[in-house]
């Protein structure tokens, strides 16, 4: 039996490895290969053009604009979402103060948990359509109708505050998931630690900043990476919500939208693939940096 071990293990590995190679590695390799051609996507013919597409990418104003928007989202989206989610999770788990030395959530916290999670189960496109009505530029929009009651003139959400509006929807949709994630993290923190803190007379605020957050750091870091990757995408929302697909005049464009435009609309799959490769590289660099960055601060319980 001893000699048969490796063939046995290999036998089990072959199928998943083959599938992984076929459906993950091969498309990635193909995208890299296409990014160095002038393939139009409309015929099987193409030329190898080397790094020309990447050169073009560096000269493309829209790409830089999109990159700027990603940086904006990369900073704001995780910060706002994590802050809100931590706050809500704390309220749900410990906001109710102490009862017999145990921290409890605010009244009705089970119900709130469901409410917070609800946006997460909606398809992005549906969310986009819903918010299309919320942000509508005239009296037919939920927000503008509300503002009308106070005599405020209609606000052009998508035209003037496009990126902030998109950010709002992203946060709205993401918060619920991280509330649940953090709540789970909080409930795994040993109760004795809190008991000790309560006995020492720590207030809820002190407990939140001094006990909960340091002990949740690992979870927060994971959340940061997830949200960062979300900030690198935002494609579906921008396509459904924004004016002129990433407009007006590129004001809400993101790299995936540029990929879509140069690939599908302008039939330049070579360039679109180059954009895709660039986006993938940025995302990986971001993930590695943020996972490495916080390593030293980890506190164990």
């Amino acid at each position, binding site marked *: 039996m001893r000699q048969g071990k490796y063939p046995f293990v290999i036998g089990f590995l072959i199928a998943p490895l083959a599938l992984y190679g076929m459906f993950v590695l091969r498309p990635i390799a193909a995208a890299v290969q296409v990014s160095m*051609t002038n*393939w*139009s*996507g*409309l*015929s*099987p*013919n*193409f*030329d*190898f053009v080397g790094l020309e597409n990447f050169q073009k990418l560096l000269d493309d104003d829209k790409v830089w604009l999109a990159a700027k928007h990603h940086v904006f989202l990369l900073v704001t989206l995780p910060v706002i979402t994590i802050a809100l989610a931590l706050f809500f999770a704390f309220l749900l788990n410990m906001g109710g103060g102490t009862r017999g030395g145990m921290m409890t959530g605010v009244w009705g916290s089970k119900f709130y948990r469901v409410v917070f999670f609800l946006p997460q189960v909606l398809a992005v496109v549906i969310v986009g359509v819903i918010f299309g009505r919320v*942000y*509508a*530029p*005239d009296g037919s929009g939920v927000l503008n109708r509300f503002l009308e009651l106070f005599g405020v003139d*209609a606000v*052009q*959400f*998508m*035209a003037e505050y496009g990126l902030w509006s998109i950010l709002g929807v992203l946060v709205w949709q993401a918060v619920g998931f991280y509330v649940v994630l953090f709540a789970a993290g909080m409930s795994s923190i040993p109760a004795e630690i809190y008991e000790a803190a309560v006995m020492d007379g720590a207030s809820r605020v002190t407990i939140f900043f001094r006990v909960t957050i340091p002990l949740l750091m690992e979870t927060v870091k994971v959340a940061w990476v997830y949200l960062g990757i979300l900030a690198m995408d935002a494609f579906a929302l921008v396509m459904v919500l924004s*004016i*002129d*697909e990433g*407009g*007006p*005049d*590129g004001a809400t464009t993101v790299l995936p939208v540029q990929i879509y*435009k140069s690939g*599908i*609309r*302008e*039939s330049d799959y070579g360039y679109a693939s180059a954009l895709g490769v660039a986006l993938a590289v940025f995302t990986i660099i971001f993930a590695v940096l943020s996972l490495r960055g916080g390593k030293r601060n980890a506190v164990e319980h």
Partner: protein
Amino acid sequence: MSNHTDSPSALNRRSVLRRTAAVGLLATPAAGLLSACVGGGTDEPTTQATGQVSAENPLGVSTETPVEVVIFDGGLGTKYATDVHIPSYQAKFPKSKVTYSSTQEVSTTLQPRFASNTPPDMVNNAGSKLMDQGKLVEAGQVADLSDLFAAPSLDIAGKTVGETLIPGTIEQGTFNGKPYVLNYAYTVFGLWYSGKLFKDNGWTAPTTWADFTALLDKMKAKGITPYSYAGANAAYYQYLVILTTAAKIGGPDVLKAIDNLEKGAWTNDAVKQAATLWGEIGAKYGNKAHLGLKHTEVQLQQNQYKVGFYPSGSWLENEQSKDTPAGFDYQVAAIPGATASDKLPATGLYAAAGEMYFVASKGKNVQGGKEYLRHMLSKAGAKGFTELTKSLTVVTGAAEGLTLSPGLTSANAALTAAGAANFSFRWDAWYKNLDDECRAATNKLMFQGGTADEFCTRMQAAADKTEKKFSR
């Protein structure tokens, strides 16, 4: 990928399949363009079916091979294909099956099929997700339609298909000297309004710019948005209007220069003047909220008598048929003259053959695809199309004897009034990147306080960066 309705393999059929000289002929036009594309995949044509050429069958269609057509399901619907053209083809070739499918996302559905050289035979390339027609031609994926236009018409005796068409139709689908695309619907572009609204208020369609702004003032006083278009997805309706005015000021050569990517074509005085005039209209009479609306939303507002003039093509009436209240009475006016020294009369119109249909050069039944177009271009086929879609076709006189809807009657009248003063441009189909750029520039000009100078320099810069591929 539900639209991958592969036609049964041609090899399984009893018909004799030969690779004929026709295949070679089809491949040659693209050879020059393709010479740049070496080293890539093989360029071998698939086996294509042909039949015996005869008086009855001038294109030499194989009587038994199926033909696959894909129709865009948009403003015109698909009934005209399923109820008129397919039965017509089927009646002539009962043994050949017409495989039909429709899609709203032409590019998403068909691009992979072109990339793998297994395209359908005839494609209606339209909608907001249409494939870049210029790139398709350049990639050698589109069949030369010369033999179709030289073939006798199906039911107009003594004329070739080409001779039955409104002048300019073939030119509209010509790329570098060869006709590749049939633009089937004849579209009149102008400012649409409600005949009822105008009648109730005693207004008439303006012909001079002063009359135009005076009327817009009156509308504004009534609380109507005098002039609007949808910024969110239909800015191209508006750039067409701006360029129409430019053509009226400086003559149609202004548009030709733009098509040919000439130096200074966009910074020309006529374009600048037109952009200035329209920028003022946008700032003074537009509704800022409409930058965030889609075309259907603005069109609906017009149906509710909240918008005065709306720029669009003659498909509008059909597109809105469900939402138009009784008695709305769609009418179209030519865009008013701009200055006293206009080179073209105020009745001048942007009118062109639109709605692209082409035959894939690497389809399994190229001649069948062309034959299908010949059925579309028959008098009966064109008449059926006009009846079902309320749109004119490029077949001369095909609408005779039909009771036309108010909008179409008005479009027809505008066309007659324009006479020879009708014009069009091609750059938007040739260079999709310029189209994208111009949409953004137009929204800026009309809604966001952009200036005519900005508009012109920006478009000129984009045009200068574009690699020239076509000319006319």
